[in-house]
């Protein structure tokens, strides 16, 4: 057998790693101060309540401690993060009006192509601002609203937003929520009226190009009674040798008997601190589905959470995280059962390679009134070598005796037998391993639309390149 060792330090991420010149972008000075927050507020022409909210968040930010229970964030120095970088482009609803260089970036990422073939609407954010937003006419005619957050906050839905903005994710929750509240910029607002079923997904893509910058987009989705929506979020950035920060907020409101699926494929570059917060509130009979693929970032803190408030509401979480060399991914999910007969089904998978660290935290809370609640959590880890690390930390807090709660965790490695079997059919060792890992991720890719499943498989192949032979 050949003993070729092809260990490489970093994989080829050509399509993600192209850096655009940002010399003509407008940047506020780096760091975080009241003055900077006020400048952002002025740039965005905030309503007064928002300006005051930003300042309140800044105060909370300064009072809160950095979380001391997860991966270290020592490499992240807020004094050297540009919180606001406005690309030299106005938002447009036709790609022709998007500046060439920025358009090319999204072309490489396949966004306009996907829009043509498989999406009902697309929003594309570049650094701190959206540069493109468009939705198919027939979806618009159904009364669906999908627009950039800044327009939304001043438009017809301003009251609806004001009532909900950072109510699910209050700035007091943790330091980075407070940071988000102070400097947020960009993101999308989606409103699906009662009974409207959007059959084709909407997608927002977040691209962070500027070196040393932070991206703080806010996504707020309201799916009204009996309506349904699939929303896809994609993110990427080129790699720099300084820290970049992503601290987005996603607040999801799923009304009675409504259904929302929120899918994420994240391939941030490996200098990114991804300190992201997502939370959904589900009313009676509503259903929340999360599909999550985390491949990038240097450090991630990511635990989408779901509050099953209404009786008979349900959630399903299917997620995978791939930690390669230099990555410390702290991921998982939280669910809180408040209503009766609520149910949650959770499947997390993690893959660790080349010294990468995965920590999977799951938290299931069943409150006293949630009789008849059901929850099943399964955590599977795949270790590709002995350098890597994988931890599973389940928490269960059950406050009623009428609940059915289960948890299982497994850890495994790729068997030599399986590799030999595949190689005996002509696959190279690297391809055999990649195929086995794709198989491990199969339940996630099956939940994604075809194009995204293909992208995820490509990401897995990229990460599997240079596997020690």
């Amino acid at each position, binding site marked *: 057998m050949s003993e070729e060792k092809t260990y490489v330090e970093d994989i080829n991420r050509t399509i993600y790693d192209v850096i655009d010149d940002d010399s003509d972008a407008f940047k506020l000075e780096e760091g975080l101060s009241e003055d900077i927050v006020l400048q952002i507020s002025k740039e965005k022409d905030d309503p007064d309540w928002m300006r005051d909210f930003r300042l309140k968040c800044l105060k909370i930010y300064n009072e809160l401690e950095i979380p001391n229970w997860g991966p270290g964030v020592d490499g992240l120095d807020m004094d050297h993060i540009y919180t606001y970088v406005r690309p030299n482009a106005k938002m447009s609803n036709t790609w022709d009006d998007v500046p060439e260089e920025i358009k090319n970036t999204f072309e490489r990422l396949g966004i306009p192509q996907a829009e043509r073939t498989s999406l009902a609407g697309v929003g594309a954010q570049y650094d701190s601002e959206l540069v493109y937003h468009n939705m198919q006419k027939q979806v618009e005619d159904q009364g669906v609203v999908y627009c950039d957050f800044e327009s939304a906050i001043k438009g017809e839905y301003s009251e609806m937003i004001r009532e909900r903005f950072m109510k699910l994710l209050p700035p007091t929750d943790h330091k980075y929520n407070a940071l988000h509240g102070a400097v947020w910029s960009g993101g999308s607002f989606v409103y699906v009226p009662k009974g409207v079923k959007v059959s084709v997904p909407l997608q927002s893509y977040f691209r962070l190009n500027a070196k040393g910058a932070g991206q703080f987009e806010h996504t707020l989705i309201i799916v009204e009674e009996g309506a349904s929506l699939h929303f896809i979020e994609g993110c990427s950035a080129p790699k720099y040798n300084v820290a970049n920060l992503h601290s987005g907020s996603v607040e999801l409101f799923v009304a009675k008997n409504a259904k929302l699926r929120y899918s994420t494929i994240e391939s941030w570059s490996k200098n990114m601190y991804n300190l992201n917060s997502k939370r959904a509130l589900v009313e009676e009979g509503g259903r929340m589905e999360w599909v999550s693929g985390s491949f990038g970032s240097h450090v991630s803190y990511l635990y989408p959470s779901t509050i099953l408030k209404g009786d008979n509401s349900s959630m399903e979480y299917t997620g995978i995280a791939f930690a390669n060399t230099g990555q410390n991914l702290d991921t998982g999910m939280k669910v809180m059962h408040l209503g009766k007969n609520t149910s949650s089904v959770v499947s997390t998978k993690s893959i660790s390679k080349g010294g990468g660290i995965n920590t999977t935290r799951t938290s299931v809370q069943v409150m006293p009134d949630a009789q008849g609640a059901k929850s099943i959590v399964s955590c599977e880890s795949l270790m590709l070598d002995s350098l890597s690390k994988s931890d599973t930390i389940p928490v269960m807090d059950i406050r009623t005796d009428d609940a059915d709660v289960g948890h299982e965790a497994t850890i495994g490695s790729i068997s030599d037998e399986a590799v*030999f079997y595949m*190689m*005996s*059919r*002509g*696959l*190279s*060792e690297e391809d055999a391993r990649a195929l086995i890992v*794709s*198989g491990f991720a199969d339940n996630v890719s099956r939940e994604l639309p075809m194009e995204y499943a293909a992208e995820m498989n490509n990401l897995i192949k990229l990460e599997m390149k240079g596997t020690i032979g």
Partner: protein
Amino acid sequence: MSQEILNIEKLCVSIGEKEILKGLDLKIGEGETHVIMGPNGAGKSTLGNTLMGKEEYEVTSGKVTFLGEDLLEMGTDERAKKGLFMTFQNPIEVPGVRVSEFIRNSCEALGNKMSLWNFKETALEQMKVLNMDPSYLDRELNLGFSGGEKKKAEIFQLLMLKPRLAILDETDSGLDVDAVRTVSEGVRVYHERVGGSLIIITHSTKILESLDVDRVHVICDGRVVAEGDRKLVDEINANGFEKYIKA
């Protein structure tokens, strides 16, 4: 003898400290069907695994030439690309990898890239030979397959990958009469359509019923101890291996 495809000379193989093959010689010609018989522990499966390049099987001396090249210098995947194939007695289960995905990848690795449509058409045609349900294609590789299903899936791959030389390692063991007949038919079709050579390692004769056998080799204690034509199979069936086992 037709053009030589495989030539094994004085092959010695050990697993750990234990020597299993002790100077084995074997020649296979293009398109020929050879049967290898022998008592348990004689080294039959070791021969297959060594030819396929399994890691634990250490070749201590001897030579193997496959299509004029030194087989032992090649990695397992290179051997497959060169046209060597082996069925596994108990192929491993690989969760999440679909049968179709695996075989399509294999075909591509062996230089036969097919469109999805083309692949499906070809696959369904071969599956018909083996009475396999089309739903096989979407199942996870060997996962939860019955013994018979596993063996059929291996022969299905034989038909799809069209190797120059196939080693069938006890493909008929543990199968009922009907399943053996189906597997045997698959092997016959392979031989007829592809014209490849076969090394059939077996305990029973049922699989051989519909096949033309060119040569039979009896292996005992790591060596070929007897060779002959098809009649040797009948003789062993009647008398067992006793007379070949050294006291």
